[in-house]
């Protein structure tokens, strides 16, 4: 939007409004706000005169404090922000970054840790079960060998029927024993 006399009027109104709210002197008028040295950049100086005595000016610190208190109202009146509407010598009070009650990273960390622990437990338990099965298989095989019915040839602890040795020959005699192993 273009800066014209109406915008200037609004600015004077906002400053008067800020002075009224700050010092609760409900007598400050728009005419008490004086603008000077308006440039094309849209920058200007302004002073606020005391409403009771139309000559003396309100001290600078009071004006600064008033504007700081109502900064966001002034900004939104002009649809501007602290960066685009600058008051020299008035530092803006910055809004702190939003912080949720539980840090987000702890939540994510909790999720990740739960997944890892679940994975470890799963693998460890699986390993123990595998070992128990292997022990059971080897004791079963020992029992068979004691009975002397069948000598089972083993390669690395695994019966030969299970290993599909392409290079070797599968002895048909052992085919009948499949039923015994299927029951495991």
């Amino acid at each position, binding site marked *: 939007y273009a800066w014209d006399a109406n915008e200037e009027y609004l600015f004077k109104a906002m400053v008067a409004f800020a002075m009224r709210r700050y010092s609760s002197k409900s007598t400050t008028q728009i005419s008490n706000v004086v603008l000077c040295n308006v*440039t*094309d*950049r*849209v*920058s200007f100086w302004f002073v606020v005169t005391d409403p009771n005595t139309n000559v003396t000016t309100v001290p600078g610190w009071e004006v600064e404090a008033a504007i700081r208190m109502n900064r966001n109202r002034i900004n939104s009146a002009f649809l501007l922000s602290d960066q685009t509407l600058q008051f020299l010598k008035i*530092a803006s*009070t*910055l809004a*702190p*970054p939003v912080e949720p009650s539980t840090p*987000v*990273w702890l939540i*994510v*960390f909790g999720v*990740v*840790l739960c997944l*890892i*622990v679940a*994975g*470890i437990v799963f*693998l*460890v338990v699986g*390993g123990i079960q595998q*070992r128990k099965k292997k022990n059971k298989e080897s004791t079963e095989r020992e029992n068979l060998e004691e009975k002397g019915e069948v000598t089972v040839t083993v*390669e*690395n602890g695994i019966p030969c029927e299970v290993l599909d040795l392409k290079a070797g020959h599968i002895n048909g005699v052992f085919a009948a024993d499949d039923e015994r192993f299927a029951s495991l």
Partner: protein
Amino acid sequence: PVPPEEDGRPKWDNKFQYILSCIGFAVGLGNVWRFPYLCQIHGGGAFLIPYFIALLFEGIPLLHLELALGQCLRKGSIGAWNTISPYLGGVGLASWMVSVLVSLYYNTVLTWVMWYFINSFQEPLPWSACPLNANRTGFNEECHKSTSVNYFWYRKTLNITSDVTESGTLQWWLILCLAACWAIVYLCTIRGIETTGKAIYVTAIFPYLVLTVFLIHGLTLPGATEGLAYLFTPNLNTLKNPRVWLDAATQIFFSLSLAFGGLIAFSSYNPAKNDCEKDAVTVALVNSVTSLYASIPVFSVLGFKATTAYWDCLDRNIISVINEFDLPEESIMRQNYTAWISFLNSSYPEKMAGLKLKSCDLQEFLDQSVSGTGLAFIVFTQAIVLMPGSQAWAILFFIMLFSLGLSSMFGNIEGVFTPLLELQVISKSLPKELLSGIICLISFLVALCFTLGSGSYWIDIFDRYAGSLPLLVIAFFEVVGVAYVYKIKRFSEDVKQMTGRKPNLYWQITWRVISPLLLLIVFVAFIILQIQKPPSYGAWNPRYEGFPMKEEKVYPPWVLAICVLLAVLPCTFVPLAALFQLIK
């Protein structure tokens, strides 16, 4: 000697798993954050010349040697070198020791990556803005003087002390992440290659996907072309500096993760009749191509960051000029900035001088090169904040870094795990799961000292001394041991039995002469460079006058003693074991 096939040794599920594991081990964080930096400071495209020469005469021969050794002898590093010659058993021991030391600090780097990863789920990203100071009128001073990404890295993550001697306290958030990282490593290495073989499918392939995504996105960013041009413009004059050749040789060497014993361990699980020559060439080439491929998105993003910083600098100057001269808004734009400035300088020189405008030079911003953790955690995080959808990019980036580091960790841990498994006393009494658990637990407890305030200084020390010099020594003895103690003829026969053809002239020459010579030269040059000036480090000291520049400090004597110990201890195993054998 080729021992029988069925010896109860675990096997790879398929060849692809083995190749992927070797590639994953070789391709690590260094491919992303060290190679692009070296390319940049050593004349861009011209750096590729010494790089490929080093690859050809040092990288590939050594890689082939290690893979063939492991495959032929079917033992981990300690057992393999004992078999080659009892006098060379120390080489295996030294490899094992280096793997232990490197595993300790490497996982702490992954801890930092994980910390950034879990912080990337926040909106806005925590490193994008400075926290406020006590009375809420401005930003935290340390953060304001440096940048918010610097503050997040040095204060919120590391909580770094200003001196390596000040240990500070244990940072509890880092301890949590460290525990999680070691738990992940345990989960993946719990049964040796049975489990890492499955995990490697994800951790080795995923980084390539993310790199491709970053490549496509990076190329669309403004300023990407400037960054890429800056990276690849060859400046052949830099080749006259011997430093460039030394950097190329060391980069190839460390990039391929040679002399750790991990490659020997990986190839020892192979069937005997496997073409290790093709494997070696494949792995080395993939590693180098990955380095090149990774440098493209890295430099697109760096170019984008430099351009954005340049535009910010211009904008700030434009605002001051407009304010000063009361010119209408939007009269000076970036395009006519230089014209306006020269006009104003000639008409109102005093006023312009009074403004104290900072000179904005794009080259200067591009020149700010960083490598290592600085690249990932400071420069890249800053660039990510500038991209739209920064959470997603941050999450992707840190998962990629984590996968890259994790697959290298597998190799390191395998280098520790396999030789221990072969010690009869351990393999009979302990199940595999328990052994890997013990290794991970002990490593976690020792690595706790890296979570102190001064932790990152110690990691730099470990990286510079334990992870560099001993490897050169070990590799030298590897090549000399195989070429002259075991004798190349015998080795060539073994390789012929495995691959079906005798190693040709290229291998003979490199194994016998070129590689040992090159390693010796690199070793000597390395030592000379280290001795030239007293080792110093850059300390982050908020009370330093030149802050935010780092304060250059010298290591105190006791720290220097530790550095020397780290570098020398693994190497002493070589002569000690030989002496021990002589005495027996």
